[in-house]
């Protein structure tokens, strides 16, 4: 076991050593820090301090790190194995006593750690957000952890695809497409499918027709006949599961749960999670809005009662662990498949590839 781990360690050290030698890597980190700084300043200026600035600042930065992480990680991981094959360094490591699993895992860990470096350099800004107050420790821990796992998933998909596909450029592009499918594709499917399978809804409205003051001073209320209107509503409640696979939703849903005294979100996690959770609630297809009966029975007219964000959030089920599990399975299968494809002696070779 220790020798298996030390083999992974050798590959990890080798990969990291090659990366830190490139100037490009530091330029990238510098640009990243500058962007996070810019976002922090913009959020700072656009938010009112009394709103509980910390929560929005923290969650905003973390979403931004996820965005940049998903943009950078495919490029850093998507050619890990086939790039080595192109450079002629894969076969020379394969004839050593290093096992294929160690090679793939070492490369995965290197890609993951590289992606985590982006989280690391944004820590000062996250720290600043925390110091602004209003960010509970639980939110910090959960969100950072989930973000780290998400970056790992993308690194795993990238390294996996680089072992499955022959051409480095192609595997990088497919990694980007996979990330895009999860981040944007799920949104598109959710929206289009919801609209395409809309239902016909009926709403009945009963209004007050007459309001007379009787001789005894009591009001006599005459209700109008029920007015029925029909319209179509999109059925997002069938498809909310699709959004569970969205990495931004996973992060938001996992870290959400902070609301103010009015039941409104105090960070972007909750603000993102609530509309997604809302989609779980089926629309009322036969609603009756009776503005009259209550009045007639001596009450006051009932206004429409919209639930608060907190109520929506608390009445629905969390989905983040399902999404996260799907992602982890996806990443792990990519790594396993890559290991199987890279194993030597090779039975079959990808078309047009040279093993050396």
């Amino acid at each position, binding site marked *: 076991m220790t*020798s298996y781990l030390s*083999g992974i360690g*050798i590959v990890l*050290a*080798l990969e990291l*050593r*090659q990366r830190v*030698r*490139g100037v490009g890597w530091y330029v990238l980190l510098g640009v990243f820090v500058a962007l996070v700084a810019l976002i922090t300043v913009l959020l700072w200026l656009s938010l009112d301090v009394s709103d509980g600035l910390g929560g929005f600042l923290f969650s905003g930065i973390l979403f931004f790190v996820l965005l940049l992480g998903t943009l950078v990680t495919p490029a850093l991981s998507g050619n890990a194995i086939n790039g*080595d094959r192109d*450079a*002629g*360094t*894969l*076969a*020379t*490591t*394969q*004839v*050593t*006593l*290093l096992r294929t699993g160690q090679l793939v895992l070492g490369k995965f860990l290197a890609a993951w750690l590289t992606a985590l470096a982006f989280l690391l350099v944004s820590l000062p800004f996250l720290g600043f957000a925390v110091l602004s107050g209003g960010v509970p420790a639980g939110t910090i821990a959960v969100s950072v952890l989930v973000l780290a796992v998400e970056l790992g998933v993308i690194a795993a998909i990238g390294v996996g695809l680089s072992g499955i596909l022959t051409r480095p450029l192609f595997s990088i592009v497919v990694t980007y497409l996979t990330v895009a499918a999860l981040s944007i594709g799920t949104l598109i499917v959710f929206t289009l499918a919801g609209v395409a399978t809309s239902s016909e809804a009926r709403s009945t409205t009963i209004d007050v027709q007459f309001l007379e003051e009787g001789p005894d001073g009591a009001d006599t209320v005459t209700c109008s006949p029920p007015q029925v209107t029909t319209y179509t509503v999109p059925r997002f409640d069938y498809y909310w599961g699709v959004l569970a696979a969205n990495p931004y939703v996973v992060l938001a849903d996992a870290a959400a749960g902070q609301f103010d005294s009015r039941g409104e979100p105090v960070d972007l996690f909750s603000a993102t999670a609530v509309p997604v959770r809302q989609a779980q609630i089926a629309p009322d297809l036969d609603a009756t809005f009776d503005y009259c009966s209550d009045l007639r029975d001596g009450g006051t007219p009932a206004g429409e009662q919209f639930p608060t964000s907190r109520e929506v959030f608390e009445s629905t089920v969390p989905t983040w662990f399902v999404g996260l599990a799907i992602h982890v399975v996806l990443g792990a299968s990519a790594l396993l498949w890559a290991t199987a494809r890279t194993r*030597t*002696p*090779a*039975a079959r*070779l990808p*078309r047009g590839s*040279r*093993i*050396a």
Partner: protein
Amino acid sequence: MRGCDRKGRGVGEGIEVVGVSRSFSAVQAVRSVTLTAEPGSITALIGPNGSGKTTLLLMLATLLRPDAGHIRVAGHDPVRQPGEVRARMGWMPDILGSWASLPVRATLEITGRMYRLPRAAARRRAEELLDLVGLTELATQPTRVLSRGQKQRLSLARALVHDPSVLLLDEPASGLDPAARVDLRVLLQRLAQEGRTVLVSSHVLAELDEMATAAVYLDGGVSVSAERIAASRVGLRPWRVRAVAAGPVGPVGPGTGVAGSADAPGSPGSAGSAGSADAPGSAERDTAALADALRAVGVPAERIRTDHLGLLVGVRDEADAAALLTALVTRGVAVSSFAPAFGELEQTFLDLHRGDRT
């Protein structure tokens, strides 16, 4: 199946290949190869481009699974016991890949670590190898700055990191300057003397000629049998003759034992070594005089050819050559050089190749 369970290095565990084939979708790269490479020997693997040399080496190096046949490298099966084979086999690929940004020394250290050498041992071994292949001065340079020949030497050092008992070298001499080639030859000879099995593929046949103790010919993915090699030897082979000044042309002497044959001398193609020519006029005169002398000792005219480097004469075998040389010297011809135009391996290679075309 000799040496199956022997763990030690060296003796008795060479390379054994029986009836191995391998195809890539439509292309049958290796059809049927059978060969043996003995410990303590340097075996040359010779064949034209696309004859399956590299594919065969990849199978020996545990990277490629054969479709059929049976392989043992250092006493183990590369398919079923790749780990056992890898621990005993060093492979130098024909593609010169190296971790471009890493220094030369670190490359060897990391390779050593991949062979499970402890850190200190890997460092020590890297120093030894740097010294062995003459890269000590470049030890701290990133490998991307190395020249082709230097990369070649690094690649060789990498193959030797774990002190393997079997060495597979794919075109090790390409890109090396003459001095480095001599170094390589001396090194490989030393490694073989230590009891290792060395299998070398190369196009530089003259190079192999000087060190190989055995040869395996591949043609169209098939290893050429000993009978076919023997059969290819029946023709005449060109020998290059040079004389300082031909002796006086006398009357045609008695038969010299040179077998009369109508065969033309083998096609010389390009000669192996460049001769230093005198003034063109005198050289031509010398060549013409030498040709006369050859005819005078009974060599049929059709077996004498001249090219830009001088004169070639077709002889049947070593005895035939010795008789011809004796005859020339006896006649008083001042022979300065009398040698096969091509090395043994090159000649066999050409003979086999010519046999294919007819």
